[in-house]
């Protein structure tokens, strides 16, 4: 987390994502989340960095983890075009960590107040993290169970095509069977890995496979920190023996300061607190297991309409690109003009908007607002959007005749999306 935040800063993304854009795309229901301006945003990131350091060293853990969760989630909610599954994952884990006693051993908190030291924790604490990790893999696997992925090796073929220049192995990437095996292996890996990790017997080999998988995807695709985070996070599946040894090794680095706890020490929650926590965790789990299936409530093809696509661990699943031409018509004169998207959006925002219907609609409303600000009331706003999905023919994506300025975003089906 510390690494991620530093990386985010170093790449200049604070400026390019939160300060430069004139307009922001909101999450449905979170329209009230606004960026804080230059100083504010940098302050937020300084706090994120400090709290992530505090979490790692176990200093003022409770405060740090709550701060981290709130700020990280806030940053993500500012602009939906920055949405990534692994940011959602970090938010969820950060939420869980607010409740975990992760500072009760080998931490500065314990060094300060040895009485809070624990060497045993209830099973739910570790299980909740395991559950969260397993869910990510399993749902990513389920998402791959679709016709294009399995039987057309799409979009894997397109991605591999672009890597055929790699020496030695490059030629292989042009082979159709390689694309098929990558697709199938990826799918089987995602579906089964968590179960292998749970068994003592296959754990080591499963972990080895996992490291290879993530390193490979990390090199091949622009997915940032995600593979490295997963490689580390899945260590939690290993036995406490393994972690004790690791701790022992680490503590040898500070051996004067840390005294091992003599007797077993643990906490158990009772009564209302326990009920509340159980209810909270169970509802979290239930929500996450059901939410990804909400797409079933919408007609049309999920990858095309993207209704119910986000927050469902659909990672690296499709190759979609779009070009969007927006037109504003003056209702009085009938005068029509094409919008210069770069006057309102950054290149990234434009790219993300052009393939996602809810964002197309939001953008139309941004245009409407800007135009009305400049004195043209009730503009008619149409969009001609061409989208290609997994190498298919670029098609008209939404009805170019519909006046987007009159539509409101909502959770009901958007009937102005044309069929795939």
């Amino acid at each position, binding site marked *: *987390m510390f690494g991620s935040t530093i990386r985010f800063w170093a790449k200049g*993304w604070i400026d390019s*994502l939160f300060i430069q854009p004139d307009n922001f795309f909101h999450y449905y229901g979170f329209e009230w989340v606004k960026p804080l301006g230059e100083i504010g945003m940098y302050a937020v990131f300084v706090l994120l960095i400090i709290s992530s350091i505090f979490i*790692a*060293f176990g200093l003022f853990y409770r405060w740090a983890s709550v701060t981290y969760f709130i700020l990280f989630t806030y940053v993500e909610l500012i602009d939906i075009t920055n949405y*990534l599954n*692994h940011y959602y994952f970090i938010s969820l884990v950060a939420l869980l960590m607010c409740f*975990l006693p*992760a*500072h*009760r*051993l*080998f931490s500065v908190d314990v060094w300060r107040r040895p009485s809070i030291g*624990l*060497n045993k*924790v209830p099973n739910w*604490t*570790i299980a909740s*993290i395991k559950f969260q990790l397993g869910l990510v893999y399993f749902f990513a696997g389920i998402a791959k169970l679709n016709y294009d992925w399995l039987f057309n090796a799409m979009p894997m073929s397109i991605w591999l*095509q*672009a890597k*055929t220049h*790699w*020496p030695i192995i490059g030629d292989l990437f042009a082979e159709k069977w390689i694309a098929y095996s990558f697709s199938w292996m990826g799918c089987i890996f995602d579906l089964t890995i968590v179960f292998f990790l749970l068994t003592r017997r296959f754990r080591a080999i499963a972990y080895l496979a996992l490291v290879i998988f993530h390193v490979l995807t990390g*090199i091949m*695709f*622009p*997915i940032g*920190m995600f593979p*490295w*985070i997963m490689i*580390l996070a899945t*260590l*939690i599946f290993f036995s406490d023996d393994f*972690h004790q040894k690791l*701790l022992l090794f*680490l503590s040898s680095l500070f051996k004067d300061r840390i005294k091992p706890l003599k007797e077993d020490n643990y906490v158990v929650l009772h009564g209302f607190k326990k009920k509340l926590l159980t209810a909270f965790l169970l509802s979290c789990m239930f929500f996450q297991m059901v939410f990804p299936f909400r797409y079933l409530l919408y007609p049309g093809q999920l990858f095309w309409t993207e209704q119910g696509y986000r927050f469902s661990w659909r*990672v*690296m*699943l*499709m190759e*979609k*690109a*779009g*070009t969007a031409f927006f037109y*504003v018509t003056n209702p009085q004169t009938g*005068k029509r*003009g*094409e919008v210069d998207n770069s*006057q309102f959006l950054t290149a*990234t925002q434009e*790219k993300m908007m052009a393939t996602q219907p809810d964002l197309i609609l939001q953008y139309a409303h941004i245009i409407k607002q*800007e*135009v009305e600000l*400049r*004195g*043209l009331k009730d503009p008619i706003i149409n969009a001609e959007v*061409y989208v*290609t999905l997994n*190498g298919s023919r670029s098609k008209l994506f939404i009805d170019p005749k519909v006046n987007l300025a009159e539509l409101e975003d909502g959770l009901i089906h958007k009937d102005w999306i044309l069929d795939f």
Partner: protein
Amino acid sequence: MKRFTQIVVIIFIVLGLGSCRPDGVDDKVEYSDLFENVADNIVVPRYAQFQSDLSALEASLNTFDASDVSSLISLQEQFKAAYLSWQSVSVFEFGPAAEYSALLRANCNSFPANISRIEENIEVGDYNLDFPSNYEAKGIPAFDYLLFHTNNNDLLVELSESSRIAYLQDCLDDMQARVDEVVNAWDSYRAVFVGSEGDDQNSSLSLLFNQFLYDFERIKREKLALPAGFASNYGIPLDADTSVVEARFSKMSFQLMDANLASLENIYLGIGNDGLDGVGIFEKLKEYNAQSTVVDGDLAIAIQEQFVICRAAISQFTNDLAFEIVHNISEVQETSNQFQKMVPMIKNDMRSYLSVTVTLTDADGD
């Protein structure tokens, strides 16, 4: 739960390792043949050409004789040559040309020219051409105005005033200084450009692709849609305005547009300034066996053909754009439609195959 603490601690350690993430897969840069051809046979010779055309313009200006109409005509011809060769370098607005001290696009060709500002500068005689407020009062469009805005006899009278010639000289010095700087910087930037790996924001692949797209979109919007009344400004639909065409006074709008398209076409095909065909984007798309999603078949061919169609659409006009907008708007609209058709070929298809991230951030495929 102590484990979790440990895990977080280990994250630190491995993040340290993560920074040296394994990339030893290849030593040779994937696009180095393309970059080498673009740098050595396209960028460098084109800048050299522009530089020498500016020098020739300087010579004509220095020997200008306001009593001799042939002197004016040769100055005008030299101007036209320089304006045409500018079109071949406008796309390279990255690296040296994008440095704040250069910013060639803004400094050399901000049109339409701000006429009252030019006249005011000349009259007052006290101006700083480095100020962004003077972008529209200098560069090639200032020449366009001062050398063409009325008939040659009247121009000769005007240009007999030394302040006007001095202003032209200052505008020219300003451009030459910037172009010289860019040409010199390319000496060392060449290695950076050719050796660039990957496709992130600052990679050569991304810079070249994005400027290629941007230059094309500028032709479509600023050179055609804005004067023709097909565009909007901040969403407000604009009426046709023939005063905002490029080269308003020398009436070279279509020639310049064609030169600009040809410049992009040659980068696409990899054709050098000497006319030799090397590795271009075309060859890369061929290697990938890229398929077009906009029209049927091969993407490399589809884009090649669309360039031909766009240039053919321009060549049918016999007058300049300002005239055609007034008298032949439907053909202008048709030309604009052909330009429009190219955009998804570049934005959807070429981008997918070159895997250029317009994104400045990580993607996870959605």
